[in-house]
């Protein structure tokens, strides 16, 4: 019986990517990033525009306009339980903060908890229409600045979480936190546009909306450049980084990359917004473009997560040499 021998290492075209962190973690990274990004954009926006539309609910007047642009912490609070959902033993999730000295998971737990608490306080304070609260301008500004810093930390942290697992070359780069930060800001600004679009909170002021949309388009442009640099760098650094990029661009995950990230995240929104600009800001078109862009943000996380291939083990070289010699011998015989 003459069976063709299969090379144990080099015959495997691409090594398998990690499968331990899947779509649940992608949703968490996405919601945390988008929530933090939208809070940053919303809080800065509220300094310049200061929208207000008081609605009386159960005889209690609430300033809901601010709520519509500062709702990021709610999104992060929805995303955080997804991380707990992925744990083996879910009721032990509070243990996750025990080792902030070395572990980024623990640091992230603290950063996210702080952002959710401080951000929600900022949100509630901005909604409540009490006169004495409105007069405390310095207190509110300080609170907003602290929560913006925490929001930026949250957005960057989603990248550092992956970077901290050093053995996957696709993730182990400084460009990943940058990519996730830019993506968080672009999806966040889109979320703000969506939440204020139909409600008439700031859209009566078309100037603000135009500034937001053009800002969002610039961010999408920067995101595209960073994504290219990120993939280029990963391709060049190591063998497994190359495999990862190959897997993402032409391998099993090409649907996520070309369909999810490129088409949904970049091409469709740009085309739709281009068309919308000809129709004087057609609300429906911008709405659809926004929803598609948000889907693209999710697929970016999913793509990066699902294409992570572990680095070679040190003895691999030795085994390859041994194998090459063994095949040489068998050929001679």
């Amino acid at each position, binding site marked *: 019986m003459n069976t063709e021998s299969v090379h*144990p290492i080099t015959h495997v075209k691409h090594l398998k990517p990690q499968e*331990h962190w899947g779509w649940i973690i992608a949703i968490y990274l996405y919601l945390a990033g988008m929530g933090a990004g939208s809070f940053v954009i919303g809080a800065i926006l509220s300094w310049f525009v200061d929208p207000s539309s008081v609605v009386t609910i159960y005889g209690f007047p609430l300033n809901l306009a601010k709520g519509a642009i500062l709702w990021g912490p709610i999104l992060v609070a929805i995303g955080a339980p997804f991380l707990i959902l992925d744990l083996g*033993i879910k009721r032990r*999730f509070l243990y996750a903060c025990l080792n902030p000295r070395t572990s980024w998971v623990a640091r992230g737990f603290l950063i996210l908890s702080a952002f959710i608490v401080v951000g929600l306080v900022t949100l509630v304070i901005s909604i409540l229409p009490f006169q004495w609260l409105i007069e405390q301008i310095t207190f509110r500004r300080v609170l907003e600045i602290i929560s913006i810093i925490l929001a930026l930390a949250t957005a960057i942290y989603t990248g550092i979480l992956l970077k901290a697992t050093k053995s996957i070359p696709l993730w182990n780069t400084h460009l990943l936190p940058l990519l996730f930060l830019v993506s968080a800001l672009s999806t966040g600004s889109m979320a703000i546009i969506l939440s204020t679009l139909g409600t008439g909170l700031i859209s009566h002021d078309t100037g603000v909306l135009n500034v937001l949309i053009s800002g969002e388009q610039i961010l999408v442009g920067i995101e595209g450049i960073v994504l290219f640099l990120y993939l280029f760098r990963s391709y060049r650094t190591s063998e497994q980084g190359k495999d990862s990029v190959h897997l993402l661009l032409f391998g099993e995950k090409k649907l996520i990359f070309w369909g999810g990230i490129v088409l949904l995240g970049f091409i469709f929104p740009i085309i739709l917004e281009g068309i919308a600009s000809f129709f004087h800001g057609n609300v429906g078109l911008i709405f659809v473009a926004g929803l598609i862009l948000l889907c693209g943000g999710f697929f970016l996380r999913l793509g990066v997560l699902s294409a992570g291939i572990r680095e070679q083990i040190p003895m691999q070289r030795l085994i390859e040499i041994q194998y090459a010699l063994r095949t040489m011998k068998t050929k001679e015989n």
Partner: protein
Amino acid sequence: MEEKVLVIDHQKCTGCRQCELVCSVFHTGSSNPSRSRIRVVKWEHEGIYLPMICNHCEEAYCVEVCPTKACHREPELNNRVVIDKNLCIGCKTCIISCPFGHPSFDTQERVTVKCDYCDGDPQCVAFCYAKAVFFMDADKIQMAKKREAANKFADLLKQARLK
């Protein structure tokens, strides 16, 4: 105190997977190799069998990334790296960060598990009839390992030169 380490001679391994069996029996009480800490990776065509174990690294990534300090080093017991079952939350960060792919997720206990030298008496060593797994003093193994590696490389170089 003398420190002992697990050493594998993969050229002696016959791929019988006895070590997987005894490991799972010792740690879980069931003869279920999928829950074993030691894994034999096989390439049957080539006759290469590689038992994969934890290296208890000096600078262990799993210890570094563990958010709960469940994965920690015990200097008093052969300087081993172990996961405390009662502290582990099963976040799988250590599995992803390990370059050797060692810690594995136990789907029944819902925590991550790894080699703990069986508290000083490794079962894989005791039951390996081919004697491919050793548990020996770290300072003795240094020289033996170096000599072994040097011999291997010298052989390879000689063979490569003959071609």
